[in-house]
């Protein structure tokens, strides 16, 4: 792990960081990955089935019915948006 790699990762994560922070993170990541990488010793290729397969957890789906009244939350939700125009959230132009 080095500074350039951390910068590349921060780009993928869409987070601006300084060169200095990237330098520090590179050292910390080495230590953290060295520790958590121990999981590789634990797994010896056993057939596990689907991870978590025996858990009782099943996704519950709501009926696709009885929607709430249209526009009920629109005002409150739009009030949280940094920029709006009419009943739309406004963003910068994406296509040239």
């Amino acid at each position, binding site marked *: 792990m080095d500074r350039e790699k951390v910068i590349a990762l921060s780009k993928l994560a869409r987070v601006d960081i300084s060169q200095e922070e990237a330098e520090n993170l590179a050292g910390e990541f080495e230590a953290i990955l060295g520790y958590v990488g121990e*999981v590789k010793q634990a797994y010896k290729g056993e057939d596990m089935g689907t991870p978590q397969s025996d858990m009782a957890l099943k996704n519950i789906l709501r009926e696709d019915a009885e929607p709430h009244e249209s526009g009920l939350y629109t005002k409150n939700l739009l009030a949280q948006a940094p920029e709006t125009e009419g009943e739309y959230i406004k963003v910068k132009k994406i296509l040239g």
Partner: protein
Amino acid sequence: MIDLNSLTISSAREALKARKFSARELMEASIQTIKDKDSDIHAFLEVFEDALGLADEADKKIKEGVDLPLLGVPIALKDNMLVSGHKVSAGSKILENFTAPIDSTAVRKLKDAGAIIIGRTNMDEFAMGSSTENSSYGPTKNPIDPTRVPGGSSGGSAAAVASGMVIGALGSDTGGSIRQPAAFCGLVGLKPTYGRVSRSGLIAYGSSLDQIGPLVKTVSDAEILYDVLKGQDPMDSTTIGDQSYPKKKDFKKIIGVPRSFVESEGVSPEIKKNFQETEKRFRDLGYEVRDIELEHLRFSLSVYYIVALAESSSNLARFDGVKYGLHVDGDNGIDDYFKTRGAGFGQEVRRRIILGTYVLSSGYYDEYYNTALKVRKLITDEFRKVFMEVDLILTPTTPTSAWKMGEKSTSPLEMYLEDIFTVPANTTGCPAISLPSGHEEINQIKLPLGIELTADLGREDNLLKAGKEFLGEK
């Protein structure tokens, strides 16, 4: 004024019913204690202005003879649960001016049970931390020794209860964030089975790990809040019902101790001594305490961090400066993302998102994330097997007592290692409770210590039973 230190949720409810004091007087006592103490502790980010008015409404209902489990009881909330019309920030600058458009299910259930939300408590940003030092709004201090941390990430909730500002609070627990601050502040903290309490309206961190639970003074109080909060919810597809994990066996008072894990390096001598005393106390209460082997347990911290990092990087992708929250203007659309997220997220959040991106990247996905999921299954299977033999697993809650502010903030790995005993419950989904078990005296200050009981999936009843016996509650 009412002394909140000697009051519990159950005793407050008795007193309210008997009209020994009113809900308004109880609320005023909380607000006054916050005014007196919180400039030193910083447990609260905000006390809600509507709290007193709601106490008056509760008094009206009490007069009408209405009886609800939490009627007139002020409850503090960790700053990651939505209360309609109130600000909620997850301790982050990126949500500094965000107002919740809905109630979280947990809050709706509290309100339905008559509770009054008094305000929101401080936390590590997005629940990422074990000390509440990572809040964007400054750290919370431990009320027992203000030079020390209260634990985290629900440190504000723990400090609020431990200092007598409120008699009950909710936290969330992704890797120990309820149980560890409970231990550091001398409280009871319960993390229910994964899926037991709805997370609808909880700001997500690690979605396969997160659970909401109570921070209180007694096991009976934990039970009152747990009974109010639990239940299947159409708004959270991962919630479970009472029959999801059928009871396989009766409670036989058998406790298992993963001996090599408890004796491991890094566990302080005081914790080890307190643990021996705890074992003896359980034996004296008629419990059988036996050693157990959990071969893969020592990998649970690694598994936990890989999963939590991965899930956090994915969950926090929603903060883009477009739909809500902070927006920092850049040169173009994508530059808006970089600038908003770079400025809005604190250092620990940036660290975890970037590392999470790494363990999920195509070149390393199998090596880290996929392997972690497989080892997670190994650990879970081992736990389920052990629970065929024992009712409970006993460990310390933490390897040390509360540390000094700033002591571990320079080494993230050292901070992560503090979660060694609490993460297995999140990794496996099992319910776990931290109980106050004694003190370690440093400079004439008695720092609280905690022990942790873990039960099989869906067996909160065993935790509550043993917890009450351990603390001598009826």
